C-alpha cells in the first residue's frame, strides 16, 4: 500500500515535470543562429543570403492552420512593405511536405522565401511552438521581438495593435521597441519524433 503510494507519487511527479518542460529556444535579446534551408526552387537560403538587409522577419508558419491561413496575406504585405527597407520576410514551414510547400507558394505567388525545415531542427533551435510564430532579428541577429503579427487574427482591419509593423518601424527609426513579446493562439507544430 505504502509502496503503491510512493510509486504513484514518483510517477505523478515525473509526469508533471514532463508536462511542464520549459521550451528551449530563443528569448528576446538572444543571438539567433543562422540556418540553411531549401526554398521552393531548391536553393539553399540562410540569413547570409540577405547581405544588404538591416534585419529579418522570420515567421514559422504552415499551409493548413486556420491562423496561418488567416495571416497569409498579411505576411506577404509585411514583405512587400519592408523587404525594400531592409527587413525581408523569411517564412519557415515545419509541418508540410516539400511538394505542398512549393504548390502553395506558387499558387499564392508568395513574394518571400518559403523554406522547408524538413528536419525541424531550425524550429526547435528557435523555440517555435505554433504557427504563425514571428521572430524579428536585428542585423547582428539578436532577437528583437517574438510573438504574434497583430492582435486580431480574424480581421486585419480591426487589429489595432500591429506588433510586427510597430517593431520593424521602431528598428528602422532606431527607437526602442515598445512591445517585444506577445502571445496568440496558434496551431501546435507537430514534431516528427512524438
Amino acid at each position: 500500500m505504502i509502496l503503491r503510494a510512493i510509486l504513484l507519487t514518483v510517477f505523478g511527479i515525473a509526469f508533471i515535470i514532463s508536462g511542464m518542460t520549459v521550451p528551449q529556444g530563443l528569448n528576446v535579446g538572444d543571438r539567433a543562429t543562422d540556418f540553411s534551408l531549401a526554398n521552393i526552387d531548391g536553393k539553399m537560403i540562410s540569413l547570409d543570403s540577405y547581405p544588404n538587409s538591416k534585419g529579418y522577419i522570420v515567421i514559422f508558419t504552415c499551409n493548413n492552420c486556420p491562423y496561418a491561413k488567416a495571416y497569409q496575406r498579411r505576411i506577404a504585405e509585411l514583405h512587400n512593405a519592408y523587404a525594400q527597407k531592409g527587413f525581408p520576410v523569411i517564412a519557415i514551414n515545419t509541418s508540410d511536405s516539400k511538394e505542398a510547400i512549393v504548390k502553395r507558394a506558387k499558387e499564392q505567388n508568395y513574394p518571400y522565401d518559403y523554406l522547408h525545415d524538413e528536419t525541424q531542427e531550425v524550429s526547435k533551435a528557435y523555440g517555435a511552438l505554433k504557427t504563425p510564430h514571428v521572430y524579428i532579428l536585428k542585423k547582428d541577429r539578436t532577437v528583437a521581438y517574438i510573438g504574434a503579427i497583430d492582435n486580431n487574427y480574424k480581421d486585419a482591419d480591426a487589429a489595432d495593435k500591429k506588433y510586427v509593423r510597430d517593431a520593424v518601424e521602431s528598428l528602422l527609426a532606431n527607437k526602442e521597441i515598445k512591445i517585444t513579446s506577445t502571445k496568440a493562439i496558434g496551431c501546435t507544430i507537430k514534431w516528427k519524433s512524438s
Partner: protein
Amino acid sequence: MSLSSGKTNMTKGLVVVYKVGYRFRWTLAVILFSYSFDSSGQQIEVIKADQLFHMIDQCPEKNKLHVYNFWATWCAPCVREIPHFESLNNSDRNVNVTLISIDDVDLLEKKVIPFVKRKEIKSNVVLLDETDFNEIIDKIDKSWSGAIPASLIVDCRSGKRLFYEKEFKAGELEKAIEMIINHP
C-alpha cells in the same frame, strides 16, 4: 417468475403505447421528432474572456475538481484527446469538465454545434468569442505559449492549479487528476 411477469408487463406496456400512439399518432410524431432534435445537441454558450475568468475563479462547485480544456474543431490533436475528457466527465469522479472552443464564433452553427452533436459530447461546451488572446493566454497560465490543445485543472478545495500545453494520451489525464487529488 419475475422475468416472465416483467416480459408480460413490457408487452402490455408496448400495446398501450401502440394504442395511445395510434390515437395520437401525429402528436406522438411531433414529440418524437422534436426529441430526436434535442437529445444529443447541448446548448453551447458563447462567452467573453471576462466570463471565462469569472467562471474559473469562482469555482462553480467548491468540492470538485474543474478541468478546462482549450480546443477547436480544426485542431486534430484536440479532437483526438476529447474522448479522454469525456470519459473523465462521465466517470464517477468528482470532476467537472468544460471544453472551451476557441473556434471562430461565425462557425458556431456550421462547425461547432454539429461537431458536438455528432460526437455526442456530454461535457459542458462553451465557445470563447475573442480575437485577441495576448492577455488572455498569460492570465490562464504564464507558461502557455498559445498553442492548443491546452488544459487547466483547478482543485476548488485548495485553489491549486495545474496547466498542461500538450495532447493527453490514454491514461495521462487520469494520472494528472490522481496527482492533484493526492497532493491538493
